[in-house]
């Protein structure tokens, strides 16, 4: 019966919901800096990069996470920044 009810509801499995919620919670738990410090750092990064490129500050995402090093299986803390560049940004030539 489970398959049918899920099919008609089109709902996600509750285990998938749990997994996704956990991933988000754990990522922020692992963050080594306070939210204020992160905000400050984010603003500074925006300021520096904006000198060279037009960036989409709304789509910008900076977080501290754990990542595996390429050359070993060791996990390290890493600052992950996703900084979208605006269409037609200065100093950025499309091919």
């Amino acid at each position: 019966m489970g398959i049918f009810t899920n099919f008609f509801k089109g709902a996600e499995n509750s285990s998938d919901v749990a997994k996704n919620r956990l991933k988000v919670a754990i990522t922020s738990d692992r963050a080594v800096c306070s939210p204020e410090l992160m905000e400050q750092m984010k603003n500074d990064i925006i300021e520096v990069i904006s000198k060279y490129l037009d960036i989409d500050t709304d789509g910008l995402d900076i977080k501290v996470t754990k990542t595996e090093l390429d050359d070993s299986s060791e996990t390290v803390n890493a600052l992950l920044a996703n900084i979208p560049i605006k269409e037609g940004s200065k100093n950025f030539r499309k091919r």
Partner: protein
Amino acid sequence: MGEVIVITSGKGGVGKTTTTANVGTGLAMQGKKVVLIDTDIGLRNLDVVMGLENRIVYNLVDVVENNCRIKQALIKDKRYPNLYLLPSAQTKDKTAVTPEQMKKLSDTLKEEFDYILMDCPAGIEQGFKNAIAGADRALVVTTPEVSAVRDADRIIGLLEANDIRKNHLIVNRLRTDMVKEGNMMSSDDVVEILAVDLIGVVPDDEQVVIATNTGEPLVGSNSKAGQAYMNICHRIMGEEVPFLDLEETKGFFSKFAAIFKK
């Protein structure tokens, strides 16, 4: 030279004490000399799970305060002569013992025992610090629930911060029927989130409740949980053991009946 293993979880009620009792008993069944230490001062439990509550004279606090010799406080198990319990104190609190004292105690016991198992209290405060002080490795117990997994992640971080890097995960109380329905995270899901090596998956088994009622650890019995615990023991000793198939092995009739139940 023995090995000190801390059994920890962060969250309470996920099965640390049951795991300690079963893994310790299982290792003793394999001929190892084992001592179990209940480090939850003020809330002692390992003694009742082991069925040794009537034999307590001295406790952990007596040992670190030198009120008695270590040998006097160790309670010999009912079934296995190479298995001992060092019970916790019931009338003191966690500040009665320091991490330094625990480290010293671990180092002394390592000379005589193959395995020293520390049953850690819930939380990340001094009780936790005491339990991990002398540990060489850790078994992190979790259940496939968001609260327990989140706490396990925090615990793994704290273990690493304290230079305990040989950490293994036990996923406890797994229900394969719920995993199948998509309503419980699988052990693979939990491993993916926590990024730590799995050493055992223990199914949710009513035999565990029955065993705790009677104070007889079920490790090595025919039950799925009993087999899962014994496999964990073999893996702790460095043996490669395939993971159990936890699917319900129902007989023909119950399968037949199940069709009509639906």
